[in-house]
């Protein structure tokens, strides 16, 4: 099935995380038509999976709420979820993108009442919680999900569970015959905002991620702290549900490492500094955090945040790249290394180890349609050869949220420059 959904004055935004949403909304609020393509069933991306932001300790879903409200009230943005751009043809000002849309098995009739989830028995890994928990195979992706519409996991299609879901829905919202579709989107300019993925911590072998249950990643730790997460916001360690009061944060887990990621991922120092607050919030009496680092990269005003954490007696800083982690008889991860400020050896047990995993651009290894110039880390470079395909956010560099939003706003202008020329030429 082929459908043309836009003219070439339209801007195509690929990726519905904070960068993509920002680029789409900023362009739409400047009067442009936008098609926003997101591969997940809901918008929000990785920031929606964070509990709090540094340095304000505010909640990412708060900004998401505003962005969703902007979106709901702006008919210029057309959102396609479960959709992936598989090809882009054409030239600046006149592209045609091929978009593969996977079946949701739930149509617009869905009221998000939840009857299907109650009817279905199968539980599957919950990617929103980085698989730390499970959810029903008929599910709302998360509490802030937009579109606010349930999804059926393909695993139940063709099973009695699917029929149960269908039978439970009073509104005819479940369509088990939905098929994958391919549609064409015409656009004058493309903003590529596919964000990042956490570096695969299992590749950092000495840290035993995957072997030791109590070694987790920083993104997973966000879910443990989040009230919407699998523990309801209690910091409990995965192996035995014990309260994790003594937490180690290991910086540069994958970053600044020629065996892994060459670049510095920029956000991880701040993320760990922030996460020490979670430990203190959970355990004000006896929570303890230790940060193992090479250089603390708390740039610009973040320095103030860093100094405040420095002043906190419950947080210890050790200048050291941790050499390895072992596990003691009680399931405590033991962190081994040397504090390089004066050569002090340590082998310290903690309740939980959090690896501040690096940022790898999602475009790395992804077949970006067209010819896009990327650097050796896989980030999209600004290059005239890219035509009117503009990188935004963490697809272009290791950025924190604030800088990603700036980048996305800038990308919106670059796209508008192209479509404005098109509009003028047509006028």
């Amino acid at each position, binding site marked *: 099935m082929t459908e043309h959904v836009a003219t070439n004055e339209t801007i195509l935004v690929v990726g519905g995380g904070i960068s993509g949403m920002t680029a789409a909304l900023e362009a739409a609020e400047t009067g442009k038509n936008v098609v926003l393509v997101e591969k997940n069933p809901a918008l929000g991306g990785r920031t929606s999976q964070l509990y709090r932001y540094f340095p304000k300790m505010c909640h990412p879903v708060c900004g998401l709420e505003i962005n969703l409200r902007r979106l709901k009230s702006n008919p210029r943005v057309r959102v396609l979820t479960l959709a992936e751009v598989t090809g882009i043809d054409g030239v600046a000002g006149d592209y045609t993108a091929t978009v593969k849309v996977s079946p949701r098995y739930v149509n617009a009739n869905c009221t998000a009442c939840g009857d299907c989830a109650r009817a279905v028995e199968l539980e599957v890994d919950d990617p929103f919680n980085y698989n730390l928990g499970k959810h029903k195979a008929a599910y709302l992706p998360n509490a802030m999900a937009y579109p606010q519409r349930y999804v059926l996991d393909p695993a139940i299609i063709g099973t009695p569970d699917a029929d149960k879901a269908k039978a439970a829905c009073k509104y005819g919202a479940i369509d088990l015959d939905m098929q994958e579709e391919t549609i064409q989107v015409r656009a004058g300019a493309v903003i590529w905002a596919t964000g990042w993925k956490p570096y695969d911590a299992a590749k950092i*072998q*000495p840290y*035993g991620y995957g*072997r030791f249950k109590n070694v987790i990643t920083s993104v997973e730790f966000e879910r443990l702290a989040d009230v919407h997460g699998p523990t309801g916001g209690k910091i409990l360690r995965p192996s035995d549900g014990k309260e994790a009061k003594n937490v180690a944060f290991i910086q540069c887990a994958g970053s600044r490492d020629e065996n892994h990621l060459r670049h510095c991922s920029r956000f991880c120092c701040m993320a760990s500094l922030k996460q020490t607050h979670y430990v203190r919030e959970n355990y004000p009496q006896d929570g303890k955090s230790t940060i193992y680092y090479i250089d603390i990269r708390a740039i610009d005003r973040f320095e103030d945040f860093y100094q405040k954490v420095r002043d906190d007696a419950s947080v210890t800083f050790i200048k050291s790249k941790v050499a*390895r982690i*072992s*596990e003691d008889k009680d399931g405590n991860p033991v962190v081994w290394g040397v504090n390089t400020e004066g050569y002090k050896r340590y082998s310290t047990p903690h309740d939980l180890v959090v690896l501040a995993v690096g940022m790898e651009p999602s475009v790395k290894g992804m077949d970006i349609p067209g010819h896009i110039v990327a650097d050796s880390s896989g980030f999209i470079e600004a290059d005239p050869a890219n035509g009117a395909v503009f990188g935004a956010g963490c697809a272009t560099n290791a950025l924190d949220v604030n800088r990603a939003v700036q980048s996305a706003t800038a990308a919106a202008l670059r796209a508008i420059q192209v479509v404005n020329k098109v509009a003028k030429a047509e006028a």
Partner: protein
Amino acid sequence: MAKREYAFYPGCSSQKGASASNYLTSVESMCKTLDVKLTEIPDWNCCGASIGYAEAGELPRHVMNARNFALSEQHLPGQEMVATCAACWLGARETRERLTHSDTLMADTREALKEAGLQINEMPEIRHMVEVLIEDLGFDEMAKHVVRPLEGVKIAGYVGCQTNRPFGVAGESFENPMYLDKLVDMVGAEAIPEYDMKVTCCGGALAFSEPEKAQAQIKDIIESAYDHGAEMIVTPCPLCQANVEIYQGQINQRYGTKFNIPVLYYSQLMVVAYGGSAKDAALNGQVIKARKLEEIAAKPVKR
């Protein structure tokens, strides 16, 4: 299946009456079963080992290894070189890499080799016996020959350092290589994949020069094996084998422990599992006798 042929580099410790002579015996027996033909490189010399560094210098060390390449090339053209000793393999492989990447070093090496009337053209690939087993034969092939599974024996796979780092066996991780555990499973014994000292250093040459430092490490290696319920330790490296086995008495004196755990080569396990006798497996070469394995070796073969 066609016979596999390799140029064999046994190394100093595997010579008759040397500390790893039991390794050699069992490897020969194992290879017979697996239809692998090892032809000793004529007049091979010592790799220099890592411990020779004080005097070795860079070029002399590489020249020593290059001599073996030259001999292998000359006498066994086209064959890959196989070492059973971790240090031999590592030393040779390191030299091969350096020579490949440095034209100067290659030229200098050639010049020195000339003095011994030798030359290198195409350096042979350097393989460890474990690589041959895993990559060339594969576990399925190796398993076919198991006729006397080592049932009921719990064995800790101690990989050690030099077969594992910096090169390692392809597809294995530096921190948690699994091939010994797979091998233990393959011979019908019980592996301990979570054995957490499997890549801890045995102290290497420090076992000779600074025994107290090395023995502290060896103690951890053995202790953890006991903690995980191991009855034996298996290793692919002669120095690991010797260090972990022969100092147990001294460690017991030093730390008041009661260690008495046999330390074997993978090849010895395989020979017994393949139906070989205790003698084929050179079990008499154990300082700490592997009684349980001897008992199994005395049992009839299940065909």
